[in-house]
């Protein structure tokens, strides 16, 4: 085994995930929220790959690729929504989009 211990990769993954989660929670711009979600996904991916390296199985890597595919599609849909909002001159603030409240 070469390189640093797997634990450090996991620490980095946790930092990425928490950063993304904080971004989702505190930012109001849908664009930034989308970015934060991407950061969370990448944190999760990093954790998957780290565990895959530690256990010696390829399962985690396969999962990571699947997550990337999902993330790519999600970005397409999300960006499309944001562009549509911009076109309709809606305010780009998630807190003002509250028509679905009960």
């Amino acid at each position, binding site marked *: 085994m070469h390189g640093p211990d797997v634990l450090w990769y996991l620490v980095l993954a946790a930092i990425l995930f928490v950063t993304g989660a904080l971004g*989702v*929670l505190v930012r109001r711009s849908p664009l930034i*929220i989308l970015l934060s979600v991407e950061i969370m996904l990448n944190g999760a991916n990093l954790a998957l790959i780290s565990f895959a390296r530690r256990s010696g199985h390829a399962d985690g890597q396969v999962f990571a690729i699947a997550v990337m595919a999902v993330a790519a599609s999600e970005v397409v849909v999300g960006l499309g929504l944001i562009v549509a909002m911009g076109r309709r001159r809606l305010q780009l603030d*998630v807190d003002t989009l*509250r*028509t679905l*409240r*009960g």
Partner: protein
Amino acid sequence: MTAANAAAWVCLALPLAATGSIALAGTRLSRRGAGYVSTLTTFGSFAAALVAFARLLAEPAGARASTSTSWTWLAAGPYRFGLTLLTDQLSVTMMLVVAGVGALIIAYSLGYMEGADEERRYFAYMSLFVFSMLLLVQAGSLLLLLAGWGMVGLSSYLLIGFHQERPAAIAAAKKAFVMNAVGDATMALALFLLVEQTGRLDDAGVFAAAPHGGTVANLVALGLLGGAVAKSAQIPLHTWLPDAMEGPTPVSALIHAATMVTAGVYLIVRLHPLFENAYLVEDLAAGLGAATLVMAGLIALVQTDIKRVIAYSTMSQIGYMFVGAASRAYPNGIFHLVTHAFFKALLFLAAGIAIHALSGEQDIRRMRGIGRTMPHTRRAFLVGSLALVGIPPFAGFFSKDSILAATIDRGAFGAVLLACGLLGTFLTGLYAFRLYFVVFGGEGDARPHLHGRAEGPPSMVSTVTVLAGLSAVGGFLQLAPVWTPLTTWLAPVAPPFAEPSGAHEAIASAAAVALGLAGIAVAYRLYAVAGARVPRPWAVLEHKLYWDELYDLLLARPADRLARGLGRFVEQLLVAGSIGEVARGFQLGGAEVSRMQNGLVRAYALALAGGVAVLALVFLSTR
């Protein structure tokens, strides 16, 4: 299985096959075709019954009864009930009557129902009825008898309500079914008691093991009597029969005169050991019969619907049969059952020709004077009326008088029965010939629609002729005490308690004929002589002694009120109220919960994150 058993199975199966094939063929079978299928199978049944009769006749008297079981019908714990037919003298006699008279009446229906809507349904029901009745009289166990009993009630319900577009017919059908269900229920209770006491329900086993005397024997007999009284339209369960005349006239002839309503008499004769174990109930049955025969005779005097008059006359005649059977004069009761089937079917069918020719008119005041244009029907009706009153040599004379003679030996109670019976013969003469003189005798302006020279379609006229012949000569089956083939034939199954002596027969006959003739004479004076003052009928008789009103007051209205009360206080408060409260609770809860859905995406995300954090903490702390 003997040849007689095989014939019995054929006799039973043919009408069922007719019902099934008519029902399954649907419109692929023409209306006429359905009628022919029904007629031919019922005649086939009659032929099979004749074969069974001939086979039994060839056996020695003691060895004629036999049972045949096709398969185990019900098996429950230690009880096993087979689909068992009993072929003996009594059941063969009943088979001959049911299939014979049934075949004639169904043949008559070919003409009567022609062109009616849903002829196929009619003939399917008729065959179903014949099957049910045959099942009833051939049943080898009381359970099967109860099944036939219920099926007869069902087919009667279907046929009374045949004109389903008439509200009166539907109401009459329901009334008949409910009153019969009361009898079915008491009969079922009696059977429960019998199973509990004896563990069996086949005739011989029950007779051997049934309790003698005591409360249980009385209760069993009372329950069976309840069934008999309901089916045979005797007091107090009689009010359905007059209303049942809403059915087509051949139905009235077959079910509500010739066969089904006599099932009660058959039951008493078939299960006579159980009734003999409870002489109090026997006396009750005789008393009810006597009361019914007088009451029905009185009511028949004032009715104006021709079929209702004949219906009350049927009740009255079955009253005689009850008196006979409950006085342990079983052959006499069965004898009257047979002759009554002939002449009552004749009266109904002759009336049916008249009704048919008058396009459904049943009010005797508007049928006046039909006799001139319909001489054949008039003669047939006259024969039926004479047989009904019991004028020699017509059939009723032989059978009714022997019942009266059998009551003479029975002490004070017998004297009461005899008095009622004699009063009944007078009333019979009066109401029968009131009907005859008013409808057929007088000058009137009823204009029957006759097509061609015949008074009706050939199937109707010919069957009425055959029945008129049977009513004229059917009585010679037996002339007690000189010539008693029927008593001898039935003796192994239902031995009479006491043979009335020749002197008693003579006294009863003379008195009954004299009173019958007196009734006819009075009827002639009142209704046939032009300008005679017809007495105003008593209101109490016109209202049929207020039985319907009494039941309405005692049963229908309290039940109605109870239902309304339950509806108001139980249904609305408890049932509907509790459901409403539950619904309101969910509404309020939902309103509260919906506030959490505030539309703030970031709040949802926080809830998710918080939830995941809590889960993570739980997992970490419990590992």
